[in-house]
């Protein structure tokens, strides 16, 4: 297998949710290697981690996102793809932390209080981490105090907030206000399907991104 072939293999595994060899799903790929094995193999072959990230993982997740919004696939397939991406990321992580790819800064992320949706937040966390940031993931249903604690523990970090419900947009607004009051100067990036540039302006956050790729560009520009 050459570099292009193995990158395609990884991308296919992520797109169709083949996590590893043992995974029974999808049935058509039963017994074959998955994202886990192919990524390990690619690194052994000398493929650059950054190429695996961009050309295999992110491009596959773009296709998954596209199919999801057209309702060609549904939540279960989306979750399995995210899991396959996670399995590949495990192998890439050491390269990011070892400094082969230099850490650009710290990014704290969480889904706001009252909201339990974490698929989008997890993708953002994985892709931002893949782009060379140290990510501190606070999970779901995160209240102001927990964000503020994490900010105090990680001076200089940028904070990302995710909300998927119109009801929790209100909680996002309150958390932004609390952080701005207690930790002036900290930069806040918001995202999630119902959130918008207008909403960002309305609640006084610093940036909005509709997807993880633009979020990376934004983050990089904030520390440049």
């Amino acid at each position, binding site marked *: 297998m050459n570099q292009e072939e193995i990158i395609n293999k990884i991308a296919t595994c992520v797109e169709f949710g083949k996590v590893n060899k043992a995974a029974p799903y999808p049935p058509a790929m039963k017994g074959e290697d998955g994202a886990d094995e192919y990524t390990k193999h690619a690194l052994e072959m000398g493929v650059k981690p950054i190429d695996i990230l961009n050309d295999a993982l992110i491009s596959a997740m773009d296709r998954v996102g596209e199919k999801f919004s057209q*309702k060609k696939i549904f*939540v*279960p397939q989306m*979750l399995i793809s995210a899991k396959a991406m996670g399995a590949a990321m495990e192998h890439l992580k050491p390269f990011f932390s070892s400094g082969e790819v230099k850490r650009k800064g710290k990014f704290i992320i969480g889904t706001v209080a*009252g909201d339990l949706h974490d698929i989008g937040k997890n993708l953002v966390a994985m892709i931002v981490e893949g782009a060379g940031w140290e990510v501190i993931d606070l999970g779901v249903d995160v209240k102001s105090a927990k964000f503020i604690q994490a900010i105090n523990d990680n001076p200089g970090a940028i904070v990302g907030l995710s909300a998927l419900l119109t009801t929790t*947009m*209100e909680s996002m607004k309150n958390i932004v206000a609390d952080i701005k009051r207690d930790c002036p100067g900290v930069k806040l990036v918001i995202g999630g399907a119902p959130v918008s540039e207008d909403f960002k302006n309305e609640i006084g956050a610093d940036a909005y991104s509709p997807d993880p790729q633009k979020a990376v560009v934004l983050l990089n520009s904030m520390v440049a």
Partner: protein
Amino acid sequence: MRKSIAEKIAEGQVLISDGAWGTFLQNMGLQPGECPESWNLKHPEKILSIAQSYIDAGSDMVETNSFGGNAFKLVHYGLDKQVHEINKAAAEISRRAAGSEKHVLGSIGPTGKMLVMGDVTYKELCGAFKAQAIALAEGGADALVIETMSDIEEARAAVTAAADNTSCEIICTMTFEKSPEGEFFTMMGVTPSDMVATMVDAGASIIGANCGNGMENMIGIAKEIRAANPDIPLLIHANAGAPVFKDGETRFLETPEQMAALISNLLDAGANIIGGCCGTTPEHIREIFNTIHK
């Protein structure tokens, strides 16, 4: 003795259900992050007034304030040890409003846990739904409505647990979204026709759709369910249109008149029981009543 809902439908009656609970509670002062079901114990008089307002508007049946009353949801509020107490109270309150003639539909919503991700086992789901169903029946529910479901296996667990452990009539509704190609799926990929066969098999005697859509889309969903099964009693709980987010609030803006204007189409599509979901109020139900009984 009170006839069952299914018997009334078999006689050709069109029945009227109730409107929203969640958005009603918010308007009464339920705070974000507060447990809606805790109000059954804290503010029973407010819950009674909601149930009563729907009965007064002409509903033949009223739900209970127990949508999130399963142990998996209540644990977020430290109330998972009170499943029985909370659900029993919910049913008792709605029964007080409904009297002996009208129906009390014990509401059972999803747990928020995902079987596909291994968050929970099928058996654990059955156990949680069983506890809730028994308490609702004990409190006086004569029907149980398993609603807003998106995963067919979770819905099956709830229907089976309810049917096996109570003598209530079992209603199951799922929430569908329209694809760009105009087909309906739940977010887990279940179609209205997929749902019918599975739920009837599991023990549901009334099938339908709730939430996620206004009247217009519900007509398409009703047609699809009717095409899959010509006889099954069909319940539709439509939202008052699509949600609009403005000034920190979610609003559903379809008026009672706008909703009522589509009732005859919904009946033609095969619906037998009509009520409302998010954003609908006693005024919407009254207008539906007036349209059906004019």
